[in-house]
C-alpha cells in the first residue's frame, strides 16, 4: 500500500527582489507503507522542502500530497497523522523531558493515567528512563535526539519524518543511532521518511531512496540499484566514486555492442543490441570493480594503461591509470595481502581487467573529438 504519494508537486518561493525560486520541480514519488525511505541530495536540492510539504508546514504551489490515497490539500500540520523529528530537535526548553513527550498527547486530550503510562513507555523505548525531570539543556546531543524521537513516536504517527536528525552528532554516536533507528523502524513498522545529505547514511538505513538534484528526482531505487545501476551521470557521480568513459557504438553483434572510447579504445559490452551504430554513450565503472595486473608476455587480457599515481589507503590502494589520451581510470585495489613493498610503480604499464557485465551504459555524453581542443579548453 502507498503511504505517501506526491503527484506532480512543485514549490515556488519568492526570493530576493521577488525572483521566483523553484525549490521543488514537478516531483512524483510513491512511498510504501512500512518502508524506510530516504531523500538524498546536497543542500538546496529541495529535500527538506518536500519533507515540509508532507508534514504540512509548506503547501505545494502545484500538485498534490496524498496520505493513504487521501489528498491532504491545505490541511494544517496539527490535523495530519504525521510527526517530525527536527534537525535541531526543537525541544521545548521550558518543559521537562516528560512534559516534552507528553505535549502531543495532551493536545489529543488523552487521560492523565494513560498519558503517564505512555510517556514512561516511550522513554523506556528510547532508553531515557530516569531522565523524566531533566530539562533539554541538561542533556547531551544524543539524549536530546532520543527525546525528540520519543516525543514524535508517542503520537503513534502513521508516517514519521526525519530532517537530518543525526547531523549534529559525532561520527561514532551517529553510526549507533543509525542502526538503532533502523531497528526501531523494523520493530514498529511505521513508515519512515528520512532526509539526509549523507549518502552512506542513506545507503545503510534505507529500504529505498530517492536521489534529488535541483528540485527534481533523479532516481528512485533500492540502495544497490542506486549504486550499481545509476540512471544518469549525476547519480553515478554523487553516490560513491565512478569512472566515466565516453564513446560511440561502432559495431553491433548478436551478443552485444562494441563501443569505441575516445576514438581509440574499443570495449565490448554485452547486451544493448538495440543501440544504433554511431550512438554516443557513457560507460560507468566503479573503481573497485577493476583489477590491476602486472604485465606478462603471455597474458594479453585486459586494457593497457600507464600508472599516474598510487595512494596507499590502508584497506585499499588507489591507482590512477591513464587509459587513453583523454581518459583516466581510478582503480581501487583491495589490499587482501599485507603490502610490505609497493606492488606497482608510477609510470609502469599495467593491465586492467573489467568484467564487461560491470559496465553501466548511460545513453548520454558528448564526444571529445580531439586532444588539442580539450587541452585548449582546459587552459
Amino acid at each position: 500500500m502507498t503511504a505517501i504519494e506526491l503527484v506532480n508537486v512543485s514549490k515556488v518561493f519568492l526570493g530576493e527582489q521577488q525572483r521566483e525560486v523553484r525549490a521543488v520541480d514537478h516531483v512524483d514519488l510513491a512511498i510504501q507503507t512500512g518502508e524506510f525511505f530516504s531523500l538524498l541530495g546536497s543542500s538546496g536540492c529541495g529535500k527538506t522542502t518536500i519533507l515540509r510539504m508532507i508534514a504540512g508546514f509548506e503547501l505545494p504551489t502545484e500538485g498534490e500530497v496524498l496520505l493513504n490515497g487521501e489528498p491532504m490539500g491545505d490541511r494544517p500540520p496539527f490535523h495530519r497523522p504525521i510527526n517530525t523529528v527536527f534537525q535541531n530537535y526543537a525541544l521545548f526548553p521550558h518543559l521537562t523531558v516528560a512534559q516534552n513527550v507528553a505535549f502531543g498527547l495532551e493536545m489529543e486530550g488523552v487521560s492523565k493515567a494513560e498519558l503517564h503510562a505512555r510517556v514512561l513507555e516511550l522513554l523506556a523505548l528510547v532508553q531515557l528512563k530516569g531522565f523524566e525531570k531533566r530539562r533539554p539543556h541538561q542533556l547531551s546531543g544524543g539524549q536530546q535526539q532520543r527525546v525528540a524521537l520519543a516525543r514524535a513516536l508517542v503520537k503513534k504517527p502513521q508516517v514519521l519524518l526525519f530532517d537530518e536528525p543525526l547531523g549534529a552528532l559525532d561520527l561514532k554516536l551517529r553510526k549507533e543511532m543509525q542502526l538503532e533507528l533502523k531497528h526501531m523502524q523494523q520493530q514498529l513498522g511505521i513508515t519512515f521518511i528520512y532526509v539526509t545529505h549523507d549518502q552512506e547514511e542513506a545507503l545503510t538505513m534505507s529500504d529505498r531512496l530517492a536521489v534529488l538534484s535541483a528540485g527534481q528526482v533523479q532516481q528512485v531505487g533500492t540502495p544497490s540499484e542506486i549504486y550499481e545501476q545509476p540512471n544518469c551521470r549525476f547519480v553515478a557521480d554523487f553516490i560513491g566514486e565512478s569512472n566515466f568513459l565516453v564513446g560511440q557504438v561502432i559495431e553491433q553483434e548478436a551478443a552485444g555492442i562494441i563501443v569505441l572510447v575516445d576514438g581509440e579504445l574499443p570495449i565490448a559490452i554485452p547486451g544493448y543490441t538495440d543501440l544504433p551504430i554511431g550512438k554516443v554513450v557513457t560507460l560507468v565503472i566503479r573503481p573497485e570493480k577493476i583489477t590491476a595486473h602486472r604485465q606478462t608476455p603471455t597474458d594479453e587480457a585486459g586494457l593497457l594503461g600507464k600508472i599516474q599515481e598510487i595512494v596507499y589507503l590502508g584497506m585499499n590502494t588507489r591507482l590512477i591509470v591513464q587509459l587513453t589520451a583523454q581518459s583516466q581510470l581510478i582503480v581501487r585495489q583491495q589490499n587482501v595481502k599485507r603490502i610490505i613493498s609497493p606492488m606497482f610503480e608510477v609510470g609502469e604499464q599495467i593491465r586492467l581487467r573489467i568484467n564487461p557485465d560491470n559496465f553501466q551504459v548511460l545513453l548520454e555524453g558528448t564526444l571529445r573529438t580531439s586532444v588539442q581542443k580539450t587541452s585548449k579548453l582546459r587552459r
Partner: protein
Amino acid sequence: MTLLNWFSQRLKTNQQRQTFALSLLLFPGTFWLLLFFVVPLLIVVLYSFLERGTYGGVDWQFTLEHYARLLNPIYWGVLGRSLLLAANTTLLCLLVGYPMAFFIASRPARWRNTLLLLVIIPFWTNFLVRIYAWIVILRQEGVINTFLESLHLVGEPLDLLFNSTAVTLGLIYGYLPFMILPLYATLERFDFSLLDAAHDLGANDLKTLIRIVLPLTARGIVAGSLLVFIPAVGEFVTPDLLGGAKSIMMGNLVHSQFLAARNWPFGSALSILMMAIVLAPILIYFRIAEQKLNA
C-alpha cells in the same frame, strides 16, 4: 599613573589586583548614584517627617502628620485612579505591542532594524510636542471631530479630550516603545522552529501561543510591563495636558504639592507612598524569578 603603578605593584596576588581594578572601574558609577540618587532620596524621606515651612521648604521639627493625612480617602481615590490608569495602559500596551514585536522579530534579519527604527523614531521629537499633537487630534474642532462632522456622522463635536480615555491614549502612545523593545529582545532570541514542533504535535495556533510562545517570552512581558507601569503611575505631564479635573494622577498631586501648595513634606510623603506601591510588584517579580531559577 605612576601612583597607580606603585599601588598595583604592592598588591601581591592576581586576585587582589583584579579586585582593585574592578573597584576602580566601579567608582565613578557608584559615586554618581550615591550623590545624585541615594542622597536626594534620603532627603525626600527626611522631609516627609518634618513640619512644612511657610514659603516652601521645611521647619526642622519631627512630625507624622503628613503620613496621617495620607489616610484621607481623597488621596486613596487619586492613588487608585493612578494605578488603574497605569494598569490599563500596561495591558493595552501589551496587547498592541506583543503582536508588533512578534511581527518584527519574525521578519528576515535585514528588515528588523528598519522596523525597530520606525518604532523609535517618535522619540526624536520632544515629548511635550507629541502630547500637544494629541490635543490637535482630539479637541472639539480637532482632526477627528472635523472628519466625523464632514461625514455628518455626528451632529455636534464629541468630547474626546480632557478625560481618562484621552489620558490613557496619551500614556499608551508615550510608553508603547518601552513595551515593544524588551518584548522584541526576547522574541528575537525565540526559536521559531518551536512553532513547527508544536503544530506538528497537534497544537493549533492558540494552544501554541499559550503553551509555548507566552511562557518562553514571559521575561520580556514582565520587563516590558514594569517599564511601562512604573513611569505611568507617576506620570504628570500627560494627565496635566490631556486629562480633566477628574483624571488627576499621583504625579499631578506630588507636582502641585511642591509647586502650587508649597507643602514639600506632604509632597515627599506622597512620593514615598507611591514608591512603596510601585516597589511591591517588582519585589514580587524578583521573588518569583528567584524561585523559578532555583526550581
